C-alpha cells in the first residue's frame, strides 16, 4: 500500500465519522468499488535500511512529521495520532448516535470504535499502534546529557548501564555504585530536611515535560514554611526505590522522588511523585505517599508542586508518610 492509498483510506474513514450524515446512505450501502486496481499498485519505497535507535528515541511527537530522514516525504499522510479520541466516533447503526457520541466526549477510552467483521476498523488499529509506538518511544527516549547541568541538578546514574538493563533489572535501578554514591555525598547537603530527586523512570518525556516546573513550585511552597531546599539530584535509569538509597547516603528526613510514570495509551507524559518519611533501603512500599497523574491534561505540574509542598509539610508534622498518613487523616 502506498502513501496515496493510505491517505485516501484515512480520508474516507474520517468522512465516515461524520455523525450528522444521512442515515439512508448507511441503510443501503452499494457494493464499493475497490480503491486501487491491481495494475496501479506500487510497493512503498523502503525508507531507510537501518534506523538508528537513538534517532527514533528523540522528540516523540514531532517524529511523524518532522524527521525527514525517517519518513522520507513528510506531511502527506494525516497524522492519526493527532485526532481527538473523544471525537473519534466510528460506531454504525447505533440507536442513538448523537447520545452515544455525547457520552463518548466524557472519556478518551476507545469506545464506539465499530468493527469490520470480527475485527477492528483500520483507523482504530492504526491509531492503537501509533499510540503504542509513542508509549514505547517514551521509554527508550533518553533525557539529554546536558539536562541536569542546564537545570542545576547534580547528575548521577544507578547501577544500570543502559535502558535494556534498566528494564530487565529493576533491582539495579534502586541503588548506586561507589563512584555515584561519592558524587551524591560530595555535592548534596548532609541531613537536609527535604531532598528532591528527579528521575527519568519509565518516561523520559514525562520527566522533561514536568519535573522542573513542579520542582520550582515545591521550592516556593517549602520556602513559605521556612524550609530551604539545597541542590536537587537527577538520577538516570531511576526506580522509585533509588530515593531510599539517597536517604541512606544523605540522611534526609523526607525524600521526594519525581519520576516518569509507565505510559498508558492516552498520554506518554504523565509524572508521579513519591514522598517517603525517613527513607532508607528496605523501607516498606506502603510508607510512600503518592501523587500521580501530573501532566497537562491531569494536574498541571506547577499546581501539583504547590500541593506536594503542602503534603511534605503535613508529613513532617505527623512524622509519617504513606498509608499511615491517610489512615490518620481519615480518623
Amino acid at each position, binding site marked *: 500500500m502506498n502513501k496515496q492509498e493510505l491517505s485516501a483510506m484515512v480520508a474516507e474513514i474520517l468522512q465516515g465519522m461524520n455523525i450528522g450524515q444521512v442515515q439512508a446512505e448507511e441503510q443501503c450501502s452499494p457494493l464499493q468499488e475497490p480503491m486501487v486496481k491491481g495494475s496501479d499498485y506500487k510497493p512503498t519505497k523502503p525508507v531507510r535500511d537501518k534506523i538508528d535507535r537513538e534517532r527514533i528515541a528523540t522528540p516523540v511527537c514531532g517524529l511523524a512529521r518532522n524527521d525527514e530522514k525517517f519518513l522520507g516525504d513528510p506531511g502527506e499522510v494525516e497524522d492519526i495520532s493527532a485526532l481527538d479520541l473523544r471525537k473519534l466516533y466510528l460506531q454504525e447503526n447505533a440507536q442513538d448516535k448523537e447520545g452515544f457520541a455525547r457520552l463518548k466526549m466524557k472519556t478518551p477510552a476507545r469506545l464506539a470504535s465499530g468493527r469490520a467483521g470480527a475485527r477492528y476498523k483500520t483507523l482504530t488499529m492504526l491509531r492503537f499502534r501509533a499510540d503504542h509506538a509513542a508509549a514505547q518511544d517514551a521509554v527508550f527516549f533518553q533525557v539529554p546529557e546536558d539536562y541536569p547541568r542546564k537545570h542545576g541538578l547534580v547528575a548521577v546514574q544507578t547501577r544500570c548501564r543502559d535502558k535494556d538493563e534498566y528494564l530487565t533489572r529493576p533491582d539495579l535501578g534502586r541503588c548506586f555504585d561507589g563512584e555515584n554514591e561519592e558524587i551524591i555525598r560530595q555535592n548534596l547537603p548532609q541531613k537536609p530536611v527535604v531532598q528532591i530527586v528527579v528521575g527519568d523512570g519509565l518516561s523520559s518525556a514525562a520527566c522533561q515535560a514536568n519535573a522542573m516546573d513542579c520542582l520550582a*513550585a515545591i521550592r516556593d511552597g517549602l520556602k513559605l514554611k521556612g524550609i530551604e531546599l539545597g541542590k536537587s539530584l537527577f538520577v538516570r535509569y531511576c526506580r522509585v526505590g533509588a530515593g531510599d538509597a539517597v536517604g541512606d547516603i544523605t540522611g534526609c528526613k523526607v525524600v521526594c522522588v519525581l519520576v516518569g510514570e509507565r505510559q498508558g495509551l492516552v498520554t506518554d507524559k504523565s509524572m508521579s511523585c513519591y514522598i517517603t518519611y525517613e527513607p532508607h533501603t528496605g523501607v516498606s512500599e506502603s510508607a510512600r505517599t503518592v*501523587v500521580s497523574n501530573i501532566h*497537562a491534561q491531569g494536574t498541571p505540574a506547577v*499546581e501539583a508542586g*504547590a500541593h506536594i509542598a503542602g503534603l511534605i509539610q503535613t508529613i513532617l508534622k505527623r512524622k509519617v508518610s504513606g498509608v499511615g498518613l491517610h489512615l490518620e487523616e481519615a480518623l
Partner: protein
Amino acid sequence: MAESLLSVGIDVGTTTTQLVVSRITVENRASGFCVPEMDITNREILYESEVAFTPLVGENLVDGGKIAEFVEEEYRKAGIKPTEVDTGAVIVTGETSRKENAAAVLQSLAGLAGEFVVATAGPDLESILAAKGAGAVAYSQRTGKNVLHMDIGGGTSNLCYIRDGEIAATGCLNVGGRLVKVEDGRISYVSTVVESLWAAGASPRPTGRMEVGEGAEVRKLEALADVLVQGLEMAAGLREKTPLWDALWTQECGEYGERIATPVCGLARNDVDFRQGRMEVGDRWVVSFSGGVADCIREDFDSFAFGDMGPILGRAIRKSRLCRGEYMLGEHTIRATVIGAGCHSAQLSGSTVFCRDVALPLKNLTVAAVPEDEQTDAGSIARRLAAADSGKAVLALPGYAGAGYAQVAQLADAVLEGFGDREILVCIEQDLAKALGQMLFLRSGKPCLCIDRVRLPAGSYLDVGVPVGPCFPVVVKTLILNG
C-alpha cells in the same frame, strides 16, 4: 472524609415566601493517589416551610418586619440557629425585587439568616436557581436532552435554556399568575404590566380593559392569559415576535457571562427549532415548567381558587403551542426557586487553593475581569480593579491551561503590580491557584486569597465562605442590592 454544610434558602416572591433548610455533602472524589478533588455529592432537604403569602403593606411594599418574623419562626420550627448556617441565599424574586423596599428587606434578612447567607436578587440568577431547583438541569444531564425551562410565578416567568446539561441562556418575561388579583368576585389589583400592554400598542390586544373594583369576568381574563401565553411562545421561538414581546421582556435581565451570549429570545431563533406553522416541540428540546402556575397546567382548579388568574393562565398554557409536543412539570414546581436557592446557590472552588491572612467570609466582592490577552498587563489589571467601583474587588483571570512555572511567575508579577496597595484577591479559571497564590505571598508578604476553577462573568459579584476541607464555598451573583 465527607464534610457537610448547612444551607438555607429563602425566597421572597411576588406572591409567596418560602424557606428550606438543606444539608450539602462535600466529598473528595479523587483517589488517594491523586491531588484531591472536592465535589458536592449530595443535597438533602431537611426542612421545608409552609408556602406563605408574601406579607405586603399596601400593594407594593413588602413588610420587612413580618418577613423577619416568618424566618425566625421557621428557624425555630426547623430547630436551627443563625450561627449554625454555613451558606445559602436570600433572594427577592419576581416583581417584588423591583419594589422600593426590597433592598432593605434583603439586608435585614441576610443579617438574621446567618453569617454566610447571601443576599441576592436578579432575574438571571433566579432563572438558573429555578431550573436547578426544579430538576431540569439534572434531567438534561441525565438524558442528554435539551430543556427549555419556564418558572412561571406570580409576577414573572424565568426562562432557562439548558443544552446538554449546561445552562446556555436565561431570560425573563413579565408573565405571571398574579398580574391580576381577584377578591370576592371583584378585581382587586391590576399590575402595571397589564396597563403597559395597552400603552405599548401590543398586538394582539387583550380584549377589554380591566379596572380595579369591576366584576371579574373569566372570559376577559382568558383573553388576557392568551396574550401573555403568546409572549411565552415567542420566547420559545414558536411565534413571530410582535411589539408585545418588547412590552413583556424584563429589562433588568442581562447577560450571564459570555457563555450565555444571547438571552432566550435570540437563542430560540437560531438554535431551537423555529418552525412556523409546524408546532411540534420536543424533537429538539423538551419544555419543562415550574412555579406556582405550573401546578395549574395539568390540574384544573376553580378559576379564582387562589384569588388570582393563575388557574386561567395555567389552562391557557396547556392549550398553547408550548404543550403540543413533549412537556413536563419539574420535580419541584412552586418550590423550585427556593430549593434552588437553598441547595444550588453555593458552588465549590478548586481543591488546591491559597489563602493567607484574609478574613472570611468575604461578601459582595466586585468582579474585575481581565481578558486572556491582558493577563500579564499590570496597567490593564490596575485599571480594571480601579473601575470595579467602591469596596473590595476580586480579580478574575482565565489563566493558562498547563502553564509552566515561568508563565505563572510572569502572571504573579503583573498581578502584584496591578493590585498595588489593595488586598490581593484573585480568582482564576484554570487549575493553578495554589502555585500562583504562594508566589504572590512570597513576593509581597501581603494577605492573599487565590482560588480557582470558578468562572466569574464580568459584572458579577462573588461571596467566599470559610473553607470546607481544602476548598472554599463560593456564590457567584449577578446582581446585588445595597441597603
